């Protein structure tokens, strides 16, 4: 009898133990397998790594900063005509060794693009600490008007006091295309003329044209108009009495034509730093020289001849 009771007691214990184990297993399998599978669970118990391959870099005693949230308020930026476009970028840095471990003076920002000069600021400013381990920085970087259009990479870096570097180059922005120019003077003069004179160059040319944008290889077209007499408006000095060229003198062959846009084939306006003042492609500059080949021999009176207002000559850059 005692043996029977003992067997029953053992059965009861086995039963309860089994029940307990079953319930525990069910609960274990049920709890939040949303992102981790049974294998992960197994691995977590055995200590086996969850991923098949793992690479680690461990610096004993120091952790490099991590840069994140690199933000520009407008990722499409227009160049400023003949000037500098200043662009603000802010970014956050986390260092698990604490914000005191960050070397604020090493916060730098660069705008990079292949074949272009890198624009940078090596004196970014600490905006403030976000918490014990994170801080925010602000950088102002100037883009020049001749910098190339297209996608530029934003590169942010910072060191900690142990010279471990954090770097982020994940963000980009678009630097737009600017077609622009500045030209001077806006009128031409000739010295005293005689009706029999020929090949008289303007005495205040060239008209200097600076490319104040970043559009490259621009053509230059000139539209001339006949100069009408101020008193007898049926008399003209014709547009085709003038030539225009990129070189001084009157050997030019580009004849102007009334109300017709003529390409000055000897000119291509490149982009460049105008302040170099080389007067050529390297500085984004071109010059136009004008020549009066001669006056009409017939039917011309002594009076003023003008082309103004809507009939002003026009110099156009063509992209």
């Amino acid at each position: 009898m005692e043996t029977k009771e003992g067997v029953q007691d053992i059965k009861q214990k086995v039963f309860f133990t089994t029940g307990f184990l079953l319930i525990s297993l069910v609960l274990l399998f049920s709890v939040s397998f949303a992102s981790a599978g049974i294998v992960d669970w197994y691995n977590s118990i055995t200590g086996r790594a969850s991923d098949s391959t793992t690479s680690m870099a461990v610096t004993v005693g120091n952790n490099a900063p991590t840069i994140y949230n690199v933000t520009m308020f407008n990722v499409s930026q227009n160049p400023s005509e003949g000037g500098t476009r200043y662009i603000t970028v802010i970014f956050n840095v986390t260092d698990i060794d604490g914000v005191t471990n960050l070397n604020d003076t090493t916060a730098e920002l660069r705008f990079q693009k292949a074949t272009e000069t890198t624009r940078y600021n090596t004196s970014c400013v600490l905006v403030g600490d976000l918490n014990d381990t994170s801080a925010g920085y602000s950088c102002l970087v100037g883009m020049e008007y001749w910098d190339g259009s297209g996608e530029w990479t934003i590169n942010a870096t910072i060191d900690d006091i142990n010279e471990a570097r954090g770097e982020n180059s994940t963000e980009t922005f678009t630097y737009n295309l600017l077609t622009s120019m500045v030209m001077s003077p806006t009128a031409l003069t000739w010295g005293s003329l005689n009706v029999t004179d020929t090949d008289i160059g303007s005495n205040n040319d060239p008209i200097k044209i600076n490319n104040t944008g970043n559009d490259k290889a621009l053509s230059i077209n000139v539209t001339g108009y006949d100069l009408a007499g101020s008193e007898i408006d049926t008399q003209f000095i014709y547009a085709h009495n003038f030539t225009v060229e990129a070189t001084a003198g009157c050997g030019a062959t580009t004849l102007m034509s009334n109300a017709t846009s003529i390409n000055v084939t000897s000119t291509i306006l490149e982009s460049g730093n105008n302040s170099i003042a080389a007067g050529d492609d390297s500085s984004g500059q071109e010059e136009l020289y004008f020549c009066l080949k001669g006056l009409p021999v017939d039917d011309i009176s002594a009076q003023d001849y003008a082309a103004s207002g809507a009939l002003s000559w026009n110099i156009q850059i063509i992209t």
Partner: protein
Amino acid sequence: MVNKIMKKEMMMVSLVLILTMAISLVSAFGASTPYWDEHPLKLAPGESTLMELTLQNMVGDGSDMVFKAEITNDGDGVAALVSSDTLYSVPFGTEDVKVPIRVVVPEDIAQGGKREVVVSFMQISSEEEGMVGVSGGFTTKFVVEVVGVEDSVLFVPPVVEPKAEEGMPMWGLILAIVIVLTIIIFWILKKKSKK
């Protein structure tokens, strides 16, 4: 005869004086565009959008400028100026005068095609008498590329709702309850049978 020659020479002198009045002025102007040859505006067939050119007048001698805008190549009808007033005033020191352009890609246009749009700006000169002035102008152009819907600048990727974190699945809960109930019932029955 002498009188005639004198008149001709006088004509030239007066021309010089008048022209001298106009020198030493500087014209400066430009327009920026968010799209160009290497950075085309990508739209799918049937789509339309509004893009803006931005006029600037930042350097020079401080003169205000007025430009007449004209689309000289509308890309086979895909582009048009929004405003019927095509004169744009650009005061000195400004860099944000917008020129809106409506771009509409027809439904029946094939993907992969490109349409070039050219916009011309000509300076409107002041009507000063007796002057031979030289005004400025420029063109700017952009390319409209016809692409699939997902490559369009207007395409907004569907927002993927983050999957709610799962707690204990329903089947697990039910199974656990069944097992617990079974054990309790079995245990009660056992106790009764003992008595």
